[in-house]
């Protein structure tokens, strides 16, 4: 009953967001303030709302994706529905707050509330150890970034003497403060969008329910970082250093994540790394510091929301129907082509999604990525080193993306022609596991409530590429396509040979996570024990020692109280002598 009510509320709210996006479309940018107060004389904290193109775009994305996710969840989830739906709705609300806010503090509220919701949603299956730790990690890493974000707000807000986003940049600010402020904001963005070096939480957040992954980790929350930079673009434009840093971070991240995706053996993990990589592409676009770049980034944000949402939902169907999204499990079904046959809709939509991700010409991802490449090219042509770096990185990433998309697609849905079904490609630890044949007869397509969103998003994944008007730079299109093919071919050939060589470095994801564990977590735990020990054995010891000294002194004085009056007399006379000597000392 409560669950149903929440479902209605959730879906209704998503639709409301879409409606709002529709109503606000084309309206002139405007801001409105409500509530506020002075703290001291130069800090004025307010709540403000605003609307402009960016708002409308993000509202539309959020609304559609969340509506799809809400609907999908009805079919997907049937336990702890109420809390889940409520949290998803709250999450949507937070994202909407971020999008419509014109106050840095209001934005921060939405921003961190998203973090909390994502924490709770990732930990939805709190019985599972990986879900617990993943949730915790996600929250802590994003919060670490958020502290930087908060400090950035301080620096910028006090520098510009306002905390209203629309008024930032209106007044002069010292370059140092500007750079510091934007860099600090960037820290928050990096945390939220899982860029290097705060990237490790996103892949670990995958134990959450798939629709949540679709909503949070593909379309909205991580995209909030991109949104924020786009929102504060005027400020960032003035801070060249920050943009350079952003470019470097983005380029490193996109390659890093793509490499990691190449070695992941679980569908959702591949998708997670691809998300990190694609977000980096958006950041790369933003880091160019041109309007083209910003436009391209937002375009990619839009298409990415569609196809990544789609892909996660598809993975969700696999998870829901098969029970796992690990390659090793899925391949047992694939051996007889069961997945393709029994789940045609999923197969088709997932193919579309992967095509869009890989940048197959005609699909949405192709266009948006090309626009980023084009913007980079234009910038690079103007003599910008950043432009060159971005250009090269994005092109390389395009190839890598094609590789892991094809790899995923082939290994999941097609039986390898290699001998013995490429025994040992994924079953390193248990070679016999492959021999057990799962009962594929019970496998069937998901309910229509789950499939309908897939179809909607698949349409988006195809059609959104044309939303921006078709203007194709043929040279670039050709180049990226060739790169994609270059990436796809090795994947195909490896699959043909039934081999999946995964370099250890990649499989361990460059060892970043264990390194963090060693460098941060272990010392902190050690320090924690030290602190408790210090409290108990040092500070506490002083207190206890004081108490014990009191008791000891008490016992001592009791001992002195011998009951022998001559002791008392002696003590007294000695006291007199001592006092006399003391007085002599004082007197002279």
């Amino acid at each position: 009953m409560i669950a149903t009510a929440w479902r209605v509320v959730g879906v209704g709210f998503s639709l409301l967001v879409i409606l709002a996006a529709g109503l606000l479309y084309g309206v002139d940018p405007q801001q409105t303030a409500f509530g506020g107060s002075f703290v001291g004389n130069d800090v004025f904290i307010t709540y403000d709302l605003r609307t402009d193109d960016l708002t409308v775009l993000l509202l539309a994305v959020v609304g559609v994706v969340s509506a799809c996710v809400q609907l999908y969840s009805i079919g997907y989830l049937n336990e702890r529905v109420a809390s889940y739906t409520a949290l998803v709705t709250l999450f949507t609300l937070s994202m909407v707050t971020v999008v419509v806010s014109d106050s840095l503090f209001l934005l921060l509220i939405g921003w961190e509330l998203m973090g909390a919701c994502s924490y709770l949603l990732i930990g939805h299956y709190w019985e599972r150890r990986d879900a617990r730790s993943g949730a915790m990690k996600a929250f802590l890493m994003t919060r670490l970034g958020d502290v930087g974000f908060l400090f950035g707000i301080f620096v910028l807000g006090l520098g510009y003497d306002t905390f209203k986003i629309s008024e930032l940049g209106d007044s002069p600010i010292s370059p140092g403060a500007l750079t510091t402020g934007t860099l600090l904001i960037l820290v928050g963005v990096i945390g939220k969008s899982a860029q290097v070096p705060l990237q490790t939480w996103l892949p670990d957040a995958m134990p959450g329910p798939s629709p949540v992954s679709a909503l949070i980790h593909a379309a909205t929350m991580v995209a909030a970082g991109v949104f924020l930079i786009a929102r504060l673009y005027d400020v960032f434009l003035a801070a060249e250093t920050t943009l350079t840093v952003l470019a470097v971070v983005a380029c490193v991240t996109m390659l890093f994540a793509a490499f990691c995706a190449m070695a992941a053996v679980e569908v959702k993990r591949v998708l997670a790394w691809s998300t990190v990589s694609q977000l980096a592409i958006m950041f790369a676009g933003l880091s160019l510091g041109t309007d083209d770049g910003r436009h391209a980034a937002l375009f990619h944000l839009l298409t990415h929301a569609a196809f990544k949402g789609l892909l996660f939902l598809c993975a969700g169907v696999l998870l829901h129907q098969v029970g796992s999204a690990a390659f090793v499990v899925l391949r047992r079904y694939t051996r007889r082509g069961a997945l393709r046959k029994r789940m045609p809709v999923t197969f088709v939509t997932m193919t579309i999604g992967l095509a869009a991700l890989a940048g197959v010409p005609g699909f949405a991802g192709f266009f948006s990525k090309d626009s980023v490449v084009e913007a980079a090219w234009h910038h690079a042509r103007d003599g910008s080193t950043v432009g060159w770096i971005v250009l090269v990185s994005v092109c390389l990433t395009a190839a890598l993306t094609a590789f892991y998309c094809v790899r995923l697609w082939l290994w999941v849905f097609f039986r390898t022609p290699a001998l013995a079904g490429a025994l040992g490609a994924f079953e390193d630890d248990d070679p016999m596991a492959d021999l057990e044949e799962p009962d594929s007869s019970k496998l069937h397509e998901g309910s229509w409530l789950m499939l309908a969103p897939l179809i909607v998003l698949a349409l988006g994944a195809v059609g959104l590429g044309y939303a921006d008007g078709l203007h194709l730079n043929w040279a670039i299109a050709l180049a990226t396509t060739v790169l994609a093919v270059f990436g796809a071919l090795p994947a195909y050939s490896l699959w043909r040979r039934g081999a999946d060589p995964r370099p250890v470095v990649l499989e361990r994801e460059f060892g970043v996570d264990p390194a963090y564990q060693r460098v941060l977590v272990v010392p902190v735990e050690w320090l924690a024990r030290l602190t408790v020990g210090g409290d108990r054995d040092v500070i506490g010891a002083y207190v206890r020692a004081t108490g014990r000294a009191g008791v000891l002194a008490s016992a001592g004085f009791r001992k002195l109280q011998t009951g022998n009056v001559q002791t008392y007399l002696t003590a007294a006379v000695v006291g007199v002598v001592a006092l006399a000597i003391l007085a002599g000392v004082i007197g002279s």
Partner: protein
Amino acid sequence: MTTALFSIAGAVALLAAVMVVTSRRIVHAALWLVVALGAVAGCFGALHAEFVALVQILVYVGAIVVLVLFALMLTKAPTNPLPALTTRRSPFAAVVALVLALILGSGVVLAFGNEKLKPVPDGSAEAVGTAVFRTWVLPFEVLSVLLLAALIGAIVLSQRTGKKGD
């Protein structure tokens, strides 16, 4: 003349005092006390405080020491030497007393080392009596309360429990 007289009496007093605190026989100690007090009375006399000297002899030698001797008898004090009359801490006590003597002595010497005194005969009973009844009326009155209270106290303590009142 005065000095010589005083010195002799003082030496006797000192010797007797040492005997009082070191003698192993209690009764001997009490008798040495008589000597010491008498010698001190002699000192008073040498300083021309004849009335005080007289009171000293009367009250101390005549009353207090007798009282002490009575007490010794009542407490069945033995007349033979007692090795345990002084405690084992007596060397320490001696050190303490010596230190005190050194401090006081040096202080006194430093302060009064060059002073001379010329005893003039004003220590008559009349002078003291005048002082008592002219100037020191209040202490004198209070002293009477003290004597009465001490007397009653001593009496009541000497009575046997429960003998009185029921």
